[in-house]
């Protein structure tokens, strides 16, 4: 026990479809946190172990179990892919170790899937949909059209946004659900164009989302006076689309590298190692690892419940969050930001892509505890 | 005979995978001759023809044709020398119809038969143009296989058991056709089980056994050598 290394696992998608939303970035971020922390905790060396779950839940579950049971891993971070995040958090509960999710966005992680051993840190679908919908309604755009990826994740985004739209007196004039394998969205663009909606909201992620935005540009949706909103947009998506295509899009994010001096300082170091600035997942990976290590130090043990308690009671103040706090459902509550994609003319660099529209305070951003179905929440 | 043979095969060996099938075949064919290869089942007759045309994997020896060694030139160039091949299994393409099968082999030389002549020779083929090649009856496929080679202008033809599965009347017709071809100066190697048929057109017979040429019998000496022949053929 004494002197045995404390291990932190990064379980992520290194080579698959989510690799640009996690993968190398996540691994580097966690390693940076460990280095910045000094490479030791409780006088024991810190080690980072990494596995590529290949988006296969069994690989993730057996790796997680093996890590927790026999490799001395006390915390697993990142966990992209909602199916995997939901499964591994259950493993963490079974094994009484800790899992922190920065990759997956599924708000089920703090709802019906919550556990006392897991934290959903960086963002979730509820906060993203909520932020963007609120902002656009505020600007007076009350008539919405949804273009939704036809799977649980897309449905959740759409449902969360719809609730806000309707709750604020807006209306949804149409919604199409595109099968997740679709690469051609032109059929839906015609429908969107024919609808009276002011906002065309894209509830999806990844390549299909990117392709949908491309079609929107091609069919001149913006030119015909509609606003395109992305309900889950990563910086990397915007970069990959190019500003020409993505300009003007409204989106919500948990982090943007160019927000202030602190974010820029971290981002500079990160970019040197990865070749691109960090996005909300990377920043969350770093911040949460740091928070975890501090809690271990403070608790004087790696015991999961004691560390969890420490993490909950300590507010998070770093470049990522101001006064962030972890609720009993595992949600890390912090401010969220609504951005708009810059026009090519406004941009001064390759990654100079977003401009801030507004900040949403943490308490307004995330699903209120009163609506939670998490059994850990007593209400 | 002063004239050099058109084809001179020397020490031809051939293999199927690891099995050594021909163990040194020697024979020659002069221009305008009909020569048969006879022998029991499995003696290597078909393999000899296949070696000449280049569809056997591994070969050794020499097959000089008009001075060029057939073993040394690329398989697809053999036909361009005017050599035509009618395979034992007929080789009708099922994905092509009768007409396409007939027109299939490119005519590498002038002097081939016109389609009408071929139809006159094999009336069964007439009017069947759009039937899929292998839907023809066994005998009709044989006719098609011979017919398509006659189109190409080949003047040296390798025929592998052209009478198998053919009705007696048509065997007679094929015999007549071959005699006409011979008169036109065509050279033919014929592999045949039907001795009576072979005797009606051939000049000489080579007897094969276990991958070797074991005897040569001129056609006019056939009757005199019947006993010897029957011994070779295991009758």
């Amino acid at each position: 026990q004494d002197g045995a290394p404390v291990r932190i696992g990064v379980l992520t998608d290194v080579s698959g479809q989510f690799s640009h939303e996690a993968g190398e970035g996540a691994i580097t971020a966690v390693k940076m946190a460990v280095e910045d922390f000094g490479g030791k905790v409780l006088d024991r060396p810190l080690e980072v172990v990494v596995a590529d779950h290949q988006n296969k839940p069994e690989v993730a579950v057996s790796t997680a179990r093996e890590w927790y049971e026999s490799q001395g891993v006390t915390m697993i971070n990142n966990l992209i892919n909602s199916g995997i995040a939901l499964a591994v958090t259950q493993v963490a509960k079974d094994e009484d170790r800790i899992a922190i999710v920065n990759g997956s966005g599924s708000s089920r992680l703090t709802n019906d899937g919550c556990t006392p051993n897991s934290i959903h840190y960086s963002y979730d679908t509820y906060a993203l949909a909520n932020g963007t919908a609120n902002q656009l309604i505020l600007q007076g755009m009350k008539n919405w059209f949804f273009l939704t990826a036809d799977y649980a994740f897309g449905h959740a985004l759409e449902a969360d946004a719809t609730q806000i739209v309707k709750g604020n007196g807006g209306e949804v004039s149409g919604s199409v659900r595109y099968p997740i394998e679709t690469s051609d969205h032109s059929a839906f663009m015609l429908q969107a164009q024919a609808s009276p909606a002011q906002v065309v909201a894209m509830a999806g992620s990844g390549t299909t989302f990117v392709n949908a935005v491309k079609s929107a540009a091609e069919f001149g949706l913006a030119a015909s006076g509609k606003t395109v909103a992305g309900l889950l947009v990563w910086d990397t998506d915007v970069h990959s689309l190019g500003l020409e295509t993505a300009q003007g899009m409204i989106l919500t994010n948990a982090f943007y590298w160019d927000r202030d001096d602190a974010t820029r300082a971290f981002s500079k170091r990160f970019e040197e190692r990865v070749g691109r600035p960090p996005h909300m997942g990377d920043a969350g990976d770093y911040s949460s690892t740091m928070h975890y290590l501090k809690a271990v130090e403070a608790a004087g043990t790696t015991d999961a419940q004691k560390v969890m308690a420490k993490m909950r009671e300590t507010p998070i103040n770093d470049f990522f969050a101001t006064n962030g706090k972890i609720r009993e459902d595992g949600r890390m509550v912090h401010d969220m930001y609504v951005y708009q994609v810059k026009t090519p003319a406004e941009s001064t660099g390759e990654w100079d892509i977003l401009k801030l529209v507004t900040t949403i305070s943490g308490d307004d951003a995330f699903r209120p505890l009163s609506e939670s179905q998490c059994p850990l929440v007593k209400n | 005979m002063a004239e050099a043979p058109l084809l001179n095969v020397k020490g031809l060996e051939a293999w199927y995978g690891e099995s050594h099938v021909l163990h040194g075949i020697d024979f020659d064919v002069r221009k305008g001759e009909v020569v048969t290869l006879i022998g029991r089942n499995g003696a290597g007759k078909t393999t000899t023809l296949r070696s000449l045309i280049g569809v056997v994997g591994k070969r050794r020896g020499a097959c000089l044709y008009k001075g060029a060694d057939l073993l040394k030139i690329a398989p697809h160039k053999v036909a361009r020398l005017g050599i035509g091949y009618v395979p034992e299994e007929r080789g009708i393409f099922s994905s092509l119809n009768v007409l396409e099968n007939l027109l299939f082999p490119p005519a590498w030389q002038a002097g081939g038969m016109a389609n009408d002549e071929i139809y006159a020779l094999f009336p069964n083929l007439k009017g069947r143009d759009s039937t899929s090649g292998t839907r023809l009856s066994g005998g009709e496929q044989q006719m098609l296989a011979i017919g398509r080679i006659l189109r190409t202008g080949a003047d040296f033809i390798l025929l592998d058991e052209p009478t198998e599965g053919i009705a007696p009347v048509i065997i007679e017709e094929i015999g007549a056709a071959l005699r006409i071809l011979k008169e036109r100066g065509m050279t033919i190697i014929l592999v045949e089980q039907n001795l009576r048929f072979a005797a009606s057109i051939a000049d000489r017979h080579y007897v094969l056994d276990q991958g070797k040429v074991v005897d040569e019998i001129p056609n006019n000496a056939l009757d005199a050598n019947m006993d010897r022949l029957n011994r070779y053929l295991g009758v």
Partner: protein
Amino acid sequence: MISSLEAPRRLRTTGGFLLALAVLLMIGAPLAIYPLFLIKILCFALFAAAFNLVLGYVGLLSFGHAAFFGGAAYITAHAAKVWQLPLELAVLAGTAFAALLGLAFGMLAIRRHGIYFAMITLALAQMIYFMAVQMPFTGGEDGIQAVPRGYLLGIVDLRNITAMYYTVLGGTVLGLVIIWRTVNSPFGHILSAIRENETRVTSLGLKPERYKLIAFTLSAALSGFAGALKAIAFQLASLVDVTWHMSGEVILMTLLGGMGTLIGPIVGASIVVGLEHFLSTSGLPITFIIGLFFVVCVMMFRRGVFGELKVLIERSKP
């Protein structure tokens, strides 16, 4: 391909010896290797062996076996979690579902040959896949988690990983025995005759479709059984198991090990699962390497690892 129904005695003894060795190894394995990993190997070994029943012994290339494997996993997971059926019934439900699905697929596809068979099974499996994406009970791409493992026969607590391991081992051995029995039975004899020459079998007064359908259904059921065991052991059911990539992977396992042999698919499954596991922490591009394996295997060991071994044994002692 099996060359003959009755392997030479020497080979049979070697095969039997290897099998006994394998079973002994598997019984002792949890001492050395992480059990959950072994469970995964077992489940995929059974899946590949079941798949091989149709590919290797009937000569039908199914490109839709993921539907049985993954479909059964969903049903089992749902039965155990939502209907709260006892373990045995949940597994049975999954297996039965796969068998019915296999029967249905089979009835639609069995008369077709070669690539058409492969494509129909693929199309049908894709339908199952899209249903799994959209039906509420499957949880879409999230899948079903937190499936209770329950108690074997109401007594043995399967939350204990060792108990779980031996349960799966038992199930796998049972499945393999069924496959072995089928292949080496009068029925299996007819199957290989059908693979060799279907028309001739018809002319002998038998209806090949019926035999193929039974074999296909059995294969589907056993694939489902493998999927059901996996759902219980891993406590989840996911979309991955019903994708066409999974159907492709099981072909790889079978081919890699050696199709038409009983041990081949087991060897193949171990290699693929092991590779996946090893590569996950290697930092190498996994898809690329799996692809490379396909290519190398097709170009160099067409008979598969076990198949090549068998040939070596046959050659070494003439």
